């Protein structure tokens, strides 16, 4: 448990190399063909052959690939922490309605403010910061509701059903907000719900990068406590874990990560559930000190691959990223349920 085995070291290195390869592929693929060596030379600051290439790389492809990295690491780590915290193998930010909560925050921010007769720019709220704060508050709200009832709901499936209910209620509320909002706002909101790494600007990345970096680092620091959670709360407490404090820290990390990612990339489903399971299967370990870095790297790889699929050659338009992650994720989740017969009795 203390020294990662050679197999795990090898897996980590392979995934790191995978990250570099898929990052490169993500930069390379797109509707405009730019030779790979040109991309490298542009990245190293050499003058491009065509002006437009530099713009495509720096304004579109690089931010997009970086968003995939941030998104993949943040959502996967959130899923890992929530699965341990809720003692539920099917927990994740999307399925438990946390992403929906973030969506409600964003919907209120994008459309609701005008619904109240004020325009966001009119009252001078910086849009990026506003969206992120609204989104984080939304996810925090849903997590707080889930945690307040979780003590009474011992059964895993009940918690999931509750998460889906919360998601439906939120969809209904968003529907009402949409009904009253203007066309332009509606369109920007609908685009947002499809999950889109393309829309992330460099300004937003400057905001997102430190948040994700700090969140993922704190998640790693929380590994020791998360390990103790595996034995159940009573044993964790008897081993010296301050349950209340560590629970609040984990909730804050997951809400801030899910909220801020969802704010700019839209709701991206199922990465949070699937990746931690893949990490456990690859490492045959439940140790969060191993699982956290493994989950981060796997998440990055899978999101880069999903993003590459979403812009396969021959397509003028990008496919919605959320559809790709759902198509990859849902069969995997069904497989987890079928494989794990005791899943409903895990508590």
């Amino acid at each position: 448990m203390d020294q990662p085995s050679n197999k795990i070291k090898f897996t980590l290195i392979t995934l790191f190399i995978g990250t570099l390869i898929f990052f490169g592929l993500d930069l390379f693929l797109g509707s405009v063909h730019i030779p790979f060596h040109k991309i490298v030379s542009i990245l190293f600051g050499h003058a491009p052959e065509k002006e437009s290439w530099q713009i495509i790389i720096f304004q579109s492809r690089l931010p997009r690939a970086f968003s995939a990295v941030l998104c993949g690491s943040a959502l996967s780590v959130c899923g890992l922490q929530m699965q341990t915290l809720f003692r539920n193998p099917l927990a994740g930010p999307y399925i438990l309605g946390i992403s929906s909560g973030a969506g409600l925050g964003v919907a209120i921010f994008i459309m609701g403010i005008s619904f109240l007769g004020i325009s966001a720019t009119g009252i001078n709220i910086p849009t990026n910061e506003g969206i992120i704060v609204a989104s984080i508050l939304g996810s925090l709200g849903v997590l707080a509701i889930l945690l307040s009832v979780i003590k009474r709901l011992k059964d895993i499936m009940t918690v999931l059903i509750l998460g889906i209910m919360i998601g439906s209620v939120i969809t209904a509320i968003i529907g009402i907000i949409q009904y009253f909002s203007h066309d332009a706002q509606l369109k920007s909101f609908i685009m947002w719900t499809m999950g889109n790494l393309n829309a992330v600007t460099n300004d937003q990345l400057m905001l997102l990068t430190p948040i994700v970096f700090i969140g993922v680092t704190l998640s790693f620091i929380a590994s020791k406590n998360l390990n103790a959670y595996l034995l159940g709360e009573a044993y964790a407490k008897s081993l010296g874990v301050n349950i209340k404090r560590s629970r609040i820290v984990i909730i804050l990390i997951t809400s801030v990560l899910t909220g801020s990612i969802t704010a700019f990339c839209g709701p991206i489903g199922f990465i949070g559930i699937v990746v931690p399971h893949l990490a456990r299967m690859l490492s045959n370990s439940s140790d969060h000190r191993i699982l956290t870095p493994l989950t981060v790297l796997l998440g990055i790889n899978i999101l880069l691959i999903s993003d590459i699929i979403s812009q396969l050659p021959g397509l003028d338009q990008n496919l919605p990223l959320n559809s790709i992650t759902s198509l990859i994720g849902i069969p995997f989740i069904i497989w987890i349920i079928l494989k794990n017969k005791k899943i409903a009795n895990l508590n």
Partner: protein
Amino acid sequence: MSKSINISALNIGYDKKNILTNINLTSNEGKMIGVFGRNGQGKSTLLKTISGLLPPISGQFYFDKINVLALSEKERAKLLSIVSTTQSGIGAITVKDYVAFGRFPYTNWLGINKAKDYQEINKAIELCKLQDFANRNYDELSDGEKQKVNIARAIAQNTPLIILDEPTVHLDLINKVEVFKLLKELVKTHNKTVIISTHQMEYALQICDEIWLINEGKVESLSPSEIIEKEKLTALFNDDLIHFDKASQSFRLK
């Protein structure tokens, strides 16, 4: 030297609802203490409270002159460890790693074990005779084996006090006796204080030094011979179905 136990004016329960009130127990010699009582009388509540898992409504618990309930989780984890019924579905954790959780209060932020920690882990594994399956997954073990692993984890935690809440539930006869004998050995040769709640009263009377008897909202401390002489167990069940036979020291059907 055994460590003194002093519980004074302790009121326990959930959400301000008293389950047991004004508990006063003093023990200077009792090293292995059995807690007896019928279901729902408050055995678990009492043990959870003195373990620090459940806040008391009011009152004190001193162990070795230390105010246990005023300690932080971290400090308390070096003073007492707990064992309750086994759990399952904890994931891919080997027996050795499970026992290593006992070192949790002593390791750094990343939980890295040092030589001293490994020494304690190995000692606990040997004491509980777990060498043969140290590398197997905890989830794959039988209930009896799991419970021994749990006890080994508590031993690795190296606390002077171990509190066990019905650790022998679900175990077969031999496993039950093994657990009791192991606990007695901890008390005798490793100078631990053990508090154990159990329905295995016939064995506990043979092995415990002191019994806390919970009956009709009262907790009293008695020696095993007093329990037998005063026919406390027949009174505890107060039932037409069974009585406790003094001569054979066992329950008989009426």
